[in-house]
């Protein structure tokens, strides 16, 4: 297939995944900030939402204060934030238009309808919490529908595999970022772990990666930071864990390699990262430092993106 087509499919999936992640982040932050101050401590949750989205610096160029109104506006609707939800959906549609021929009509319909709804219903943003909740649900449902229609309607060929690569690469990045920020915020007060304050913080992390229920099923325990880290980093039964993302990345890259009769740098690199995850234990990660581990992972993940681009997309 055309390199540009593969590139568009890859970015299309990334944008949709990112839009969903941002919606989840806002949603989780809203829940935490709705609690009385005694439960959430002194940290500014909106600040940490900006950090997990990786847009803190650009936000403060445009705004003075990280409060609900400003951050929601910036993350969800701002035209000047290149990765706001609005811009993600715009970019997803533009990419879809460029690869109309590689999309199934169900996928196109999902993106196109979302784009139309974005203009017609959400053109002016939201004016109440209720509307905001509706908007966030709309974004998440769009992503689910897109993912589902890709899964159910696409031929299992390189078009599908490149689209999956975009999705898992973006997802791995998002999970890593939220873990990193939250650990940074929360762990200095390690002695309080398990107190009511952290409990809600941890809940919000899990919620933002839709893993709260999963946690209880897997561990049958109260929330413990190292178990949460274990779940999000190493447990490959959880679809948003780093381990699961890398199983998928390796599998899809292998399929491309087999179809094209040639392996390359991206296959090797992805396998390297996956092997590291497979052979890691939480104890070692804690000893090594969670922050360092995740930072390294984020860099490795970004590197995979570059290698895939070089090998296939240009």
């Amino acid at each position, binding site marked *: *297939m*055309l*390199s*540009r*087509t*593969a590139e568009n499919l890859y970015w299309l999936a990334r944008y949709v995944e990112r839009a969903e992640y941002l919606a989840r982040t806002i949603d989780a932050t809203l829940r935490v900030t709705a609690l009385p101050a005694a439960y959430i401590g002194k940290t500014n949750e909106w600040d940490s939402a900006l950090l997990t989205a990786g847009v803190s610096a650009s936000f403060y160029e445009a705004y003075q204060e990280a409060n609900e109104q400003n951050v929601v506006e910036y993350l969800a609707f701002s035209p000047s934030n290149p990765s706001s939800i609005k811009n993600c959906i715009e970019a997803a549609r*533009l990419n879809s*238009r*460029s690869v*109309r*021929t590689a999309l199934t*009509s169900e996928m*196109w*319909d999902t993106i*196109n*309808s979302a784009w*139309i709804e974005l203009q017609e219903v959400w053109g002016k943003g939201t004016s109440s919490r209720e509307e905001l909740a509706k908007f966030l649900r709309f974004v998440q449902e769009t992503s689910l529908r897109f993912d589902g229609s890709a899964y159910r309607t696409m031929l299992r060929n*390189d078009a599908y595999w*490149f689209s999956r690569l975009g999705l898992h690469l973006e997802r791995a990045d998002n999970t890593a970022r939220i873990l990193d920020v939250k650990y940074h915020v929360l762990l200095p007060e390690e002695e309080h772990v398990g107190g009511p304050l952290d409990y809600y913080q941890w809940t919000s992390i899990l919620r933002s990666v839709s893993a709260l229920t999963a946690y209880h099923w897997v561990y049958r325990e109260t929330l413990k930071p190292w178990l949460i880290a274990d779940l999000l980093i190493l447990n490959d039964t959880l679809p948003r864990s780093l381990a699961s993302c890398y199983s998928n990345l390796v599998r899809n890259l292998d399929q*491309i390699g087999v179809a*094209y009769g*040639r392996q390359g740098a991206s296959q090797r690199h992805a396998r390297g990262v996956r092997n590291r995850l497979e052979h890691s234990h939480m104890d070692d990660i804690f000893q090594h430092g969670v922050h360092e581990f995740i930072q390294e992972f984020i860099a490795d993940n970004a590197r995979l993106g570059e290698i895939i681009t070089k090998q*296939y*997309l*240009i």
Partner: protein
Amino acid sequence: MAVAFDEMNGPGGDLRPAYQELSRWLKETPPDALEYRRQEAELLFRRIGITFAVYGDAEAQERLIPFDVIPRIMSAKEWTLLEKGLKQRVRALNMFLRDIYHGRDILRANIIPDDLIFQNPVFRPEMNGQDVPHDVYVHIAGIDIVRVDADNFIVLEDNARTPSGVSYMLENREIMMRLFPDLFARHRVAPVEKYPDELLSALRSVAPLSASAEPVVALMTPGVYNSAYYEHSFLADKLGIELVEGRDLIVKNDEVFMRTTEGLKRVDVIYRRVDDDFLDPLTFRPDSALGVPGLMSAYAAGNVTLANAVGTGIADDKAVYSYMPDIVKFYLGEEPILKNVPTWRCREPKDLAYVLDNLGDLVVKEVHGSGGYGMLIGPAATKATIEAFRDKLKREPEGFIAQPTLALSTCPTCTASGLAPRHVDLRPFVLTGRDHVTIVPGGLTRVALKEGSLVVNSSQGGGTKDTWILDE
């Protein structure tokens, strides 16, 4: 201006045979049911994403072309005549182009003045003496046809460069079949769905000799911001070929390749929807980022076929158009089946004088214009517009031609105040391959939705209709 010929209710208000069943059906169908279907059709178009862009209109970058649900119907007999005329005309166009870029018999016979060709900006000296596979220049032609009475088809324009609109012909039919299955059951409508297959086989048949047994065809688009981008992606999809942009192509050793995830892959035939000027920055506009450096050199080496060929603009120049009846006679020795609109060439002083004296009654067009941009419709224009146009004409007379205002035929059309006659034209699409010329029965009917308006172009508020050719 004479009263327009109505295709449903002919002169004297007699229902014409092709419309009998439709007329009966319309009487049985309550108006609100029709309105409901109309809304449904619009919803379908929007969801499929069939839009077009209007240049210079920032508010509505993507717009729907209004679709009118009342079909335009022609009998098999009418179509047979039209088809014959179209084939004749396109054969002549191809022979004319071959001649202009080779022996130039028609110039030596003094049928067309030399300077009209050589001074013409759309004449491409790069094509002098260059052979194209099987002498086909215009693989895809869109011939704009109008009617003024029951017996005559008149060619308004020949589009021999990159005619668009065929996706609407195909989608209009799809949507009509979804919305009005009962109406189809009562007619025998010739299908149009073979068009993509016929286009692909025409394109393959003109692959260069150096191509493999399975020539690779690609459709080249200027990109998503082009007004016809929807059509480009639609056609690539229907043909099952790659939709490429200039940046996807690269020329090596005079061969064209596309960049794929598995490396470079040779392309043999390019159905290009990019104008000549933007094909190759080395040959044409150096500032163009849309093209492929070296493409013209691969073309000259005979390693790639461009459809349509480079330089076909000289055949749809509106001043050359005025010579079409002579062109048909010269190459084919036949009387032209399709008529021309009488045309004054403003480059000729006698004609210019007449045009300047009668601006209020004439339609004046730019010789290289398309899409209804930059034309004057005398009877509908204000005095100030006419005067401004007069200055333009005097400054650059060779840039314009003028024609009488035709009373285009009308068809019943849904309007805010019920069914009413609106002016229509027809663009059939004529395909030329190695051995034969084919036309799927029908084409794109465009309708001027404003009462009395004669401008059917989508960029000027025109709509479209499904076009039915009835099988006997």
